[in-house]
C-alpha cells in the first residue's frame, strides 16, 4: 500500500477537522497518555450517563494524522456505548476505522494511542487495571 493510499481523503479530513475535539465541562473520566517514542499525545474526557453509558466523549491531542484521526474516529464509535463495550475494543477495530492501512510497527503505536487512552480511562473508572500489551513492546 502506498502512502497515497494510507493518507486517504477520509483520514486527512479527520486530521484537519477532528470530530469530538475539545474538552468537557463536566466529566467522570479523564485519561491522557503520550507515545514516548514519538511524542504524540491524546487526552480523552468522558461523561458517564445512566446505565454506565458513554454519554459524552471528547478528546484533545497533538500528533500525526494517524493518531489524531484514529482517536477522533474512536470517540465517534464510543459515544452512546456501554462502558463495558470498551473492554471489547480490539486493535483490529481501530485498523478498520482507518481503512486497514499497512503500517510499520512504529506507526501502529500511533494508530493505537487513542485506544490505549480510552481503555486506561475506562478501566480505571471501572476499578480495573489496563495492562497495555503495546506499551513496552515496540514491535507489536
Amino acid at each position, binding site marked *: 500500500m502506498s*502512502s*497515497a493510499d494510507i493518507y486517504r481523503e477520509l483520514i*486527512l479530513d479527520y486530521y484537519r477537522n477532528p470530530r469530538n475535539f475539545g474538552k468537557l465541562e463536566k466529566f467522570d473520566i479523564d485519561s491522557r497518555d503520550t507515545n514516548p517514542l*514519538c511524542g504524540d*499525545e491524546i487526552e480523552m474526557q468522558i461523561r458517564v450517563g445512566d446505565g454506565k453509558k458513554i454519554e459524552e466523549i471528547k478528546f484533545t491531542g497533538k*500528533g*500525526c*494524522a*494517524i493518531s489524531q484521526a484514529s482517536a477522533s474516529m474512536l470517540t465517534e464509535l464510543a459515544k452512546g456505548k456501554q462502558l463495558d463495550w470498551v473492554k471489547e475494543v480490539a486493535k483490529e477495530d481501530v485498523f478498520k476505522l482507518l481503512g486497514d492501512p499497512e503500517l510499520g510497527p512504529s506507526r501502529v503505536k*500511533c494508530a493505537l494511542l487513542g485506544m490505549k487512552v480510552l481503555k486506561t480511562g475506562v478501566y480505571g473508572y471501572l476499578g480495573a487495571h489496563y495492562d497495555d500489551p503495546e506499551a513496552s513492546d515496540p514491535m507489536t
Partner: protein
Amino acid sequence: MLKTEPLDVQRIRADFPILRREVHGKRLVYLDNAATTQKPQVVIDALVDYYSRYNSNIHRSVHTLGEEATAAYEAARGKVAKFVGAPAKGLVLLRGTTEATNLIRFAWGEENVRKGDTLVTTLMEHHSNIVPWQLLANKKGAALKFVGLNKDGTLDMGQYEELLKESPKLVAVTHCSNVLGTINDVAQICTKARRAGATTVVDGAQSVPHMPVNVESIGCDFYAFSGHKMLGPTGIGALAGKKELLESMEPFHGGGEMIKEVFLDHSTWNDVPYKFEAGTVNIADAIGLGAAVDYLSAIGMDKVREHEVRLIEYALETLAKVKGFHPYGPTDPRKKGGVISFNLADVHPHDLATILDEEGIAIRSGHHCAQPLMRWLDVAAASRASFHVYNSYDDVDVLKAGLEKAGAIFKV
C-alpha cells in the same frame, strides 16, 4: 556544480556497504545522520578482524591474545584522544554521551553539588544533557536553570552572564544543537564559566563527528561524545576530562579493573582513566571506533566540515522552494552543523517520514530528545534531515522531490 568539491562523495560512498541497499525499491537516501551514522567497511573489518584473530579480555592478561587485544584497545584510546586533542590518560571510554553525562552526575555531582547550588544548562539541549542534571538538582535541593534562546536559535548570552552571577557549580552546554544546528562558542562559554567558578561540561555528540574539535583550546572540564554518530560502532563513546579533576573524583561503577586492592571493608582505586572503566569494557567497539577515527582523519575534518557547509547551503536554498517548507535555527550555513530541522505546513513529521520512506529517504521525525526546545519552538514535533560525508547534492534533490510529493498528498 562548478566549484571543486572538498570531498569525492562517489568514492566515499563506495566505502559504505549499506548505501548499496534499496528501500522500497529506491536507492537509500540516508539523511538521519544526527541520530546515527552509517559505517565504512574499514570499521566493520576492524570488528571482524578483532573477533576472528585476537579476541581476548584485556589488561589482566599475560597470553598473546590478551597482549594484542590490550595493545589494540589502548591504541584506540590514543587515537580517539588525539582526535579531540586530549591526553590519552584523560580519556574514559564508555557507551556514549549519555553514559558520560551520567558519569559526571554520579562521580562528580554527588560530591560537589549541595543544597541551594545552581546548575546551568540551556534550552537547546538534548535530554542527555538535561535529565542527569535535573535528577542531580532534585536530589540535592539545587536549582537547574536554563539559558534561553534568541529568536535566531542562538544562546541568549546576556541571560547566560546573568546566571553566572549566581556562581553556578556547573555549566552544561552543547557544542552543536542536534535540532537547530546552532554551533555554540563553547570556548567563550567555558572561559566565562571558569571565571565564575563553574565546572564545565560540553556535549560534543553533534560536533566531534562533523568538525575539527580540540578540547584543550575549548578549555572545558569535560567533553562527551558518541562513537556511533561518527562512523563508529554502537555501544562506544568517550568522556575527555581534565586529568586532575578525574583524579580527584570518586569512581563511578564499582567492580573489576577499576580497583587497585579490594578488602572486606574498603577498596582502593586504579589510576585514571581505568578508575572509570569498571568491568569488561567494550573492547571490540573501542577498536572499531579507533578505525572510524582513522577513516575520518584520512579524509580530514576540515574537509568534512566544508562539505557539510556546502550541502547545508544547497539544501536551505533548494528546499526553500518547496511550498510550506519551514526550517528552524540559524540560516547561515557557517554557523550551523550539518542539520536542518523543519516542518512542512501542517503535515505531521511522522506522516512526512512515512511518505518519504516510500521514496527511500530516511529522515528523523519527532521531538529529537529535546522536548524543552520543542516547547520553545512551539511545535510538538519536527522533521530533521542531517548529513555526513556520503551525502550529495543529489540526495538533497531527492529529498526535495519527496517533500513535494508529501505536499501533494496532503494538499498543502
